[in-house]
């Protein structure tokens, strides 16, 4: 890679997407969703907390701009359905907030920031089953970094990012982190 290393928000690492590129990726995904769902009828966008939620809202706003269509948008917390709960101390829950129209018979597009092992998406599919019966479920992610551990793939991808498992991908979003960027670095996010 020829991109130069620089620091965003005092965090060292390689910026792989900047704000402008994230905006373009989301615009393209919004168009793709409209195309694949034949005009976005009956689409419900569900973001997976934390950063999937603002991404889902942005996609809904884009679709609104392009087609004048109000796409219902919500959040789906998957913590209680994860398969790795016992590997860490119990963690705080995110919000599950379904649009009033529900998910029955809809085309649900799950939205997350990074697709990695696929385990979060597996948990999301389980969580969704308990909430209703969508007609179809699709997956949109900003970054697909590979290394899948389950037979899961994304329908809409902002950027395919080849990584090594040692590396860590951070997605920063204005709504949560004060700025937009995708960073790749060698060490983990301080938590």
């Amino acid at each position, binding site marked *: 890679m020829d991109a130069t290393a620089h620091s965003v928000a005092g965090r060292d690492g390689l910026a792989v997407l900047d704000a402008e590129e994230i905006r373009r990726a989301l615009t393209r995904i919004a168009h793709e969703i409209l195309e694949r769902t034949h005009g976005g009828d009956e689409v419900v966008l569900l973001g997976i907390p934390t950063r999937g939620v603002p991404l889902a809202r942005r996609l809904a706003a884009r679709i609104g701009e392009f087609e004048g269509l109000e796409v219902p948008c919500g959040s789906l917390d998957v913590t209680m359905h994860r398969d790795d*709960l016992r590997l860490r101390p119990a963690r705080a*829950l*995110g*919000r599950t907030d379904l649009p009033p129209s529900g998910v029955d018979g809809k085309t649900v597009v799950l939205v997350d920031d990074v697709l990695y092992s696929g385990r979060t998406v597996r948990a999301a599919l*389980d969580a969704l089953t308990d909430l209703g019966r969508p007609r179809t479920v699709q997956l949109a992610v900003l970054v697909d970094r590979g290394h899948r551990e389950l037979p899961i793939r994304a329908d809409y991808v902002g950027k395919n990012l080849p990584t090594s498992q040692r590396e860590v991908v951070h997605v920063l979003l204005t709504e949560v982190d004060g700025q937009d960027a995708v960073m790749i670095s060698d060490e983990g996010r301080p938590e």
Partner: protein
Amino acid sequence: MKRHLISAADLSRGDALLILDTAEELASLADRPIKKLPTLRGRTVVNLFFEDSTRTRISFEAAAKRLSADVINFSAKGSSVAKGESLKDTALTLEAMGADAVVIRHSASGAAHRLAGWVRGSVVNAGDGTHEHPTQALLDAFTIRRKLRASGGRGAGLDGIRVTIVGDVLHSRVARSNVLLLSSLGAEVTLAAPPTLLPLAVDTWPCAVSYDLDTELPKSDVVMMLRVQQERMTAAYFPSVREYSRRYGLDAARMARLPEHAIVMHPGPMNRGVEIAAEVADSARSTIVEQVANGVTTRMAVLYLLLGGTEFPEVAS
């Protein structure tokens, strides 16, 4: 969080807020078609009840089942306890059965604390004698926050909310747990009771004390009525039930002196006509039924936070 929940004093403000916020997220489960989460699949929760209880036992049972845990109910009646088995031997039996959590209700203060020394799983105190009942305090705090803070109050404490706890404080584990928890959440707690029904060391508690309910009512955001626990009374603490009710019972006339937004709470079971008049208990200000519903949600949050993650290291707390 610590590994056991024995006393409300075990909970820091941060722990308490984590429990309340978790409960807030779990509350929406009650409106869903499938009221169940797979989180505690394969875990076993034992309800160990040496004392009569309806709502607490059912509440813990519902909470554990909604999280998919296996529940074993044990009540002293009809068990080996009736044949004279000691608490320790009962504990060792549970241990051998592999209980991940034991919810204990016992008539002796300190029973939950003793049990925690004998079992490997988490111990949740569901009421020990006249000592503590921390999950009741948590559900009360949750109810207060939902009622008096905008949009459920996620992340917020109870700072500045004035709570008056009225009646039989001496025999009440609910009062002690509430004073400890509500004060660490920032509420200003006042106990209003006859001097005979206040514990000796009440001046060391983080709360104010008053003998006159009527002066406290106009400045209260929350009034929490306690049950007069006649089964624990071994002496005459007041001249007559009628006189107690006149001075410390909440009737419609007294309720009218409360501020517009104030709520009336009672941990149940109620003695209608003694500490609370029927018309007050059934009024729109009363949160008594809501407290029961919130009990399940809050206990789910406690069980999830104690059992949902990694097992605690052997030498915890």
